[in-house]
């Protein structure tokens, strides 16, 4: 797996998952692959972090899940964003942008 992968910052996993599910529902592996793709392979989410995060977010009511068929006709558990989840995505995005801007400014200053 190598050291080329950056560890996901605490708190960003939720945002990434929400973002990954924004366009539409995905199963667990799909979420993982979408994040990898979105971040150009910088973040690879392992099941060990993905599962607890998905379950926790579902309990919070941000995600909803159901059993469905995958692209190659396999049974899989799908997750989709709820209304609450969309709102959460909005909030977390804003917050993240604030932080990112602040960090960028901080690092730019001499």
């Amino acid at each position, binding site marked *: 797996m190598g050291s080329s992968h950056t560890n996901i910052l605490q708190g960003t996993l939720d945002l990434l998952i929400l973002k990954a599910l924004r366009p539409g529902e995905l199963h667990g592996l799909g979420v993982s692959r979408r994040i990898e793709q979105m971040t150009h392979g910088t973040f690879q989410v392992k099941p*060990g972090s993905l*599962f607890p995060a998905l379950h926790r977010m579902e309990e919070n009511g941000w995600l909803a899940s159901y059993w469905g068929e995958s692209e190659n006709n396999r049974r899989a558990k799908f997750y989709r964003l709820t209304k609450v989840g969309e709102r959460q995505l909005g909030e977390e995005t804003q917050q993240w942008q604030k932080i990112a801007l602040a960090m960028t400014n901080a690092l730019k200053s001499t």
Partner: protein
Amino acid sequence: MVLWSRLKSLFRNLFHRRAVEEDLDDEVRTYVEMLAAENEAAGVAPVEARRRALAEFGGAEHLKQTVREKRTGTMLESIGQDLRLGVRQLFKSPGFGVTVIATLALSIGITTAVFSVLYAMLVRPLPYRDVSQIVALDTRSAGGGSQAASYPEYLDWRRMSHSFSALAGYKLAGTVGLESTSGPVVLREVQGTDNFFDVFGVNPIIGRTFAAGEDADGKNDVVVLSYEVWRQDFGGSDSAVGQQVKMDGSEYTVIGVMPAGFRFPINVANAVYIPLHLSMSQRQNRGNHWLYTVARLKSAVLPKQAEADLTTIFAALGKGDTFNAGRTVAAVDLTTFTVGSSAGSLWLLLYAVGAVLAIGCVNVAGLLLARGVKREREMALRSAIGAPRLRIVRQLVTEAVVFAVVGAAGGVVLAFGLLRVIRLLLIAALSRGAEVGVNLPTLAAALAISVAVTVIAALIPGLRLSGTSPTLALKAGGSAGSSRGQNRLRTGFVVTQVALALALLLVSGLLLHMLQGLRSTQLGFSADRMLTVEVNLPRGRYQGRDVLADFYNPLVDKIGALPGVRAVGLIQMLPVQGWGWNSEHIHIMGTPPLKSPRTDPAEVRFVSAGYYQVFEDRLVEGRLQDPSIDRPTTRLVTVVNEAFVKKFIPAGRDPVGMEIGDDGQTDTLASQQNPRALIVGVVKNLRQTIYQPPMPEMDYLIAQVPEKESLNALGSMHLVMRTAVDPTSFVPALRRVFHEVDQTVPMQEPVTMQQVIADVLTFERLENWLFGAFAAMAVILAIVGLYGLITHEVELSTREIGIRLALGASRSKIFLGIFRRVGWMLAAGIAIGLLVTTAAQRFIGAVVAIEIQKDGLLMAALAAALLGIGFAATLLPARRAASVEPMEALRDE
């Protein structure tokens, strides 16, 4: 929104656990399968594809556990596990569990019951308006003896004082017979001045109370009913008011009904309240002190100011009145007045309860701590295999909570049960006995204290254990719990328990001793086979009649004729039960004249000749009265007791033949025609009241009571009889005789003299009973604690003992070694217990005095007994220690 969704999850997680788990399993499985499929699609061989998928996925069980821990309700679930474990532990070692639970239940139950009694007696306000403004006037004579007001005095006080919005007089006239529709009923009668009800500020529920001036003759045949009487004898009907009733043969009009709970005096139940009915002598005689006073202070007037006000009045009135000079008064607030002498005993009970609670808590703490130490390695092991610290502590606490809850439930049940028993005993003994109920705040407090102690005691080893590194605890093995700090703690527990148990044992022992003393005290007579019954003549019916010829003589004759009756007599105040009918101005003719008003009173008794046959063999000197010699028309004679001789007759003079003087306003029955009473005989003392040594007494023959005073002096008498067989078997015959003589006279329930004495001592008995129970419990708890702690100690040092045995120590040496250690602890406990008891003398003194020379032996015996019990509790564990097999012990550990 989040909350709602969480609640839904919680519900699902708790109640559809299996579905949730299967769902998770499925999800994991399909994830791995998809990974494998991906690999296969990339051209990897199926078996290898699956292997790589599993490897990428990582530890599935660990992952599932992580997910589970994130679930809502995990906490609840693990607490449930702890609870189940706790209950299982309880059943695994039932001895330990039962001990802890029983200790808790007893501590909580007893504390609550006794606290509730104390609350009802001492704290709860009396059922009157603005109780703090009501005072009872404790008036005393110059000599300090309690002396009520005479009616003329009362009128002066009322007229001259400025401190009171109402100053009322009242008289307990004893009982009155009401002719109800279902036959005669005996009620308690309270007579008061017209402003009696103004003092209490309580309004009647129907009708009215006394109007001003209604205590005057001719207007005073009205009655206010207590709630109980109204319900029981008037059917609780509104039409009771205005009704004409017959009481003791006189006609009364019912004018009002008081609300439930109103009573004055507070211990008088089933009362009727009527305005004063005065005899001529009561109305006019300033020396006739019989009227008790109670008053409501004007607002902003303090009791001290009222006392000053009255003192000024007393001084003014006392001038020129040799017999009433020097009177003092204390305005006693009504609560103190009501609680009276029982307060000291009740407070002492409180300390005893505190001590038992303390012993109980120490016991529970000791047991739990010991157990915690024993489980040190279990905990260390759990910690070593990864149980989080919090989880271990939580488990210990949950277990303790299981104990605490079961113990608390037992305590609640016990409290209610115990109170029921105490109430039965209290009703007779204490003024507010019937009103005692479980005090809920107290119950809550007792529960809180014991549960807190239990949990803390469980928490301490838990915190300590979870703090130490597991390897250390595991390695420490044999020396578990043998650290110095723990040793000291255990020793402290044993010493505390022994000390408290001894203190309780001593106090209860002394009380028991005192009670026995009182019971078999030099009463001056034997109470065996004696029956007594109170007689109250209906005033209206016997007014102006010869009560002896018309009632008492035929009654006594008929009873005396019953087979099996050895003697029968009459006296107006029953020995042991009553006193205070006295005369204050005793002057013996031929002795130096009275300097100032003499203040030493002598009790006055009116007796029939038969009385001396019932209270037999008492004549010391001279003769007894004889109705055939001593008639109404002959010389007034009296028989005095030895205490009288000692007090009033100069040493060396022969009392027989001396005369008791004519100082005027006395109750000696001296009169114009018969100015002096001749002493014809001296009798042995008998106790007028069980609590005091015999007082001086002069006995007069009922036949010599002047006719105009006869109803006053003889209207209420006690019939006493001594029988050859069981006295209670005479009750039906007695009833028949009463009926034959006068069926309108209500007959009270006859009681044996033994019963009278027992009734007088009810409170002492209760106190002893409770103290005995406390002491017994304290001792049992101490034994349990001692046994538990020593057993624990032996268990802990099994390895050490094994080594010592292996090194050649003899078994007897091990055995003795343990006893020596325990001996020290017991000795320290006993020393402290003795010190505590002595130090507490100040509190205990109100109830029982410790006299070292008299009670020293008893105290030493009790201490020795406790020492013996302590050693007995050590015997079993010590023997077990001495029988340790060295090899086994070493291997075991």
